[in-house]
């Protein structure tokens, strides 16, 4: 049972001490799920309002201005109430069972991705060792709900939308996963919290500035992620000018709004992955501030620091979460900006962009980032551009590194969480290596 819950969770520890393991962990799961589902419901309220305001400003009008006093900030809530009141229609030609079910499939898949999103140092619903992989896997399930919605509607518009979505998402998944792997190779771990911790210190430690390949990978990832959450200019699945409303043509009321809640939540989820992998996660990027905040609650390597009160660590984590949300929301703002600036591509152009350009580029970046440390090592004699050790808070992730032994051979050794080196000789001897020559 404890495998289901991260060791980081202080709530799990507290509850299981007091009311027994089964109920404690069950209640912890419930608390985590309820917190995430609240974010899941409230974030779209804000982002839909933001979308309307930004769209309005870009088109030289005001957007919503009246509901809720200034700036129309309650507009989305009013829309939501209207949607709940609408009739829940099901067309006569539809496959009723799948038609009613598919909004929930989209909703669940999008919600599941938030389980391993790191909000702050240690604030994560499930600190899985495979965090990045899990998020990509679960987000790939969203397409199933969309395809089912298109198929079961019994409408040609919806069917075309669903087919386009299937073709598009299945293709864009590949460069998205490869681009996410680029910073993972730099970090040497798939754990979201560990990746975040490795980017502490000055903002030059962020993986987007780590090397040229990571920098390019960020932009490629962002393009591909925009396509994978079917946002313009890649919103072929719901192209209004051609397909009425694409896969959700036949939907109305609350089921229709589930699709949009999932879409806006997914926009934040992919932006959250970009923030955690490339933009330093919950860190401000200014070393003295970060060390003042996070070193006070957590020792190097992740264990809680001495003499930290629960309230103190919660306040610090709340600040970290705010920084994370600001970064993620900035990326969502970029997605909205792009949507209202660029024209929609044709479906063949969408597929060409992915398969002929983005996929080869991402493969090149993956190879490049793997070769980069070796190249640096042979040119300037160290494996990073910036001299010195890795970031102060983030250098204790267990990793495999080439080391030299006394016998002038290169071995692969392993550094564990406590900084001890464990020998694990693999190649003995290695004929041509830069490290061996330098000895």
């Amino acid at each position, binding site marked *: 049972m404890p495998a289901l819950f991260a060791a980081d969770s202080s709530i799990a520890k507290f509850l299981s001490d007091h009311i027994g*393991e089964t*109920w404690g962990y069950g209640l912890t799961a419930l608390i985590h799920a309820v917190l995430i589902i609240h974010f899941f419901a409230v974030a779209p309220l804000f982002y839909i309002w933001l979308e309307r305001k930004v769209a309005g400003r870009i088109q030289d009008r005001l957007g919503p201005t009246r509901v809720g006093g200034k700036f129309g900030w309650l507009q989305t809530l009013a829309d939501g109430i209207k949607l709940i009141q609408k009739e829940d229609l099901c067309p006569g030609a539809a496959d009723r069972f799948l038609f009613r079910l598919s909004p929930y499939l989209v909703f669940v898949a999008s919600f599941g991705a938030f389980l391993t999103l790191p909000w702050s140092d240690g604030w994560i619903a499930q600190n899985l060792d495979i965090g990045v*992989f899990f998020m*990509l*896997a*679960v987000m790939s399930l969203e397409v199933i709900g969309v395809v089912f919605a298109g*198929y079961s509607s019994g409408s040609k518009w919806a069917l075309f939308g669903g087919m386009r979505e299937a073709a598009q998402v299945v293709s864009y998944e590949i460069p998205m996963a490869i681009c996410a792997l680029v910073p993972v190779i730099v970090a040497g771990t798939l754990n979201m919290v560990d990746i975040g911790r490795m980017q502490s210190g000055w903002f030059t430690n962020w993986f987007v500035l780590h090397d040229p390949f990571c920098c390019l990978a960020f932009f490629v990832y962002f393009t591909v992620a925009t396509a994978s959450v079917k946002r313009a200019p890649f919103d072929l699945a719901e192209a209004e000018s051609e397909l009425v409303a694409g896969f959700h043509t036949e939907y109305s009321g609350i089921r229709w709004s589930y699709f949009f809640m999932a879409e806006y939540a997914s926009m934040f989820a992919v932006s959250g992955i970009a923030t955690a992998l490339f933009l330093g996660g919950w860190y401000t990027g200014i070393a003295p501030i970060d060390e003042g905040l996070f070193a006070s609650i957590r020792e190097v390597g992740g264990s809680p620091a001495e003499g930290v009160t629960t309230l103190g660590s919660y306040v610090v984590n709340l600040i970290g979460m705010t920084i994370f949300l600001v970064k993620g929301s900035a990326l969502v703002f970029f997605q909205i900006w792009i949507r209202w600036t660029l024209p929609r591509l044709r479906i063949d152009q969408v597929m060409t962009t992915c398969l002929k350009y983005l996929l080869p580029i991402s493969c090149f970046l993956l190879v490049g980032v793997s070769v980069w440390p070796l190249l640096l090592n042979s040119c300037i004699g160290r494996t990073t551009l910036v001299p010195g050790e890795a970031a102060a808070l983030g250098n204790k992730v267990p990793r495999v590194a080439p080391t030299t032994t006394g016998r002038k051979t290169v071995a692969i050794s392993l550094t564990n969480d406590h900084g001890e080196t464990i020998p694990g*000789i693999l190649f003995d001897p290695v004929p041509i290596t830069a490290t061996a020559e330098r000895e």
Partner: protein
Amino acid sequence: MSGANFLFWVYALAAGGSAIAVVLTQNVVRMAFWLIVSLGSTAGLFFLLGADFVGAAQLLVYVGGTLVLLIFGVMLTASGPFINMKTNPGELVLAGVVGCALLGVILSTTGAVAWDALPSSQHQQKLGFNPPEDGSTLRPLGMSFIGLRPDKDLDRKGTSGQLSTGYLLPFEIVSVHLLVVLVGAAYLARAKRRQGS
């Protein structure tokens, strides 16, 4: 009954029940839906047992990849709106025999494993990693894929001598095999030029 046991039964019943539903349903797309439930529940069982990587791979490869392609194929090739599949009795018998044979193989394999002799999580704690119970499940797998077996070699004295081999060679062979399959698929699917034009 502990919480883990309860969750196991939930997922096991969902996996088994929806697998039966796949067989009994006539509509192809609904079959695909029940298959999603079945494979997703199996992934849930993997997560419950601490095999996170296998669970996520199950979701990504089978649910997110294979099934989407399956539905896509049905949507492209269907002549009517909601096609049904009719199986004749001969196919039913054949499938039943194959299914029962597979069940026999799995049951005999399960009985043959010495469950008590499996390694504990002490080796991992010796390495300084969190035990699998705390969510650290990937590192031993990743180590063995690049040819390191610290779980076996940690107690070894000195730096000379033979080390245990990991799974680097099988891993590479499988990768090359997949590459060959991909190249072959691209070759088969290429646009064919008519002769003489």
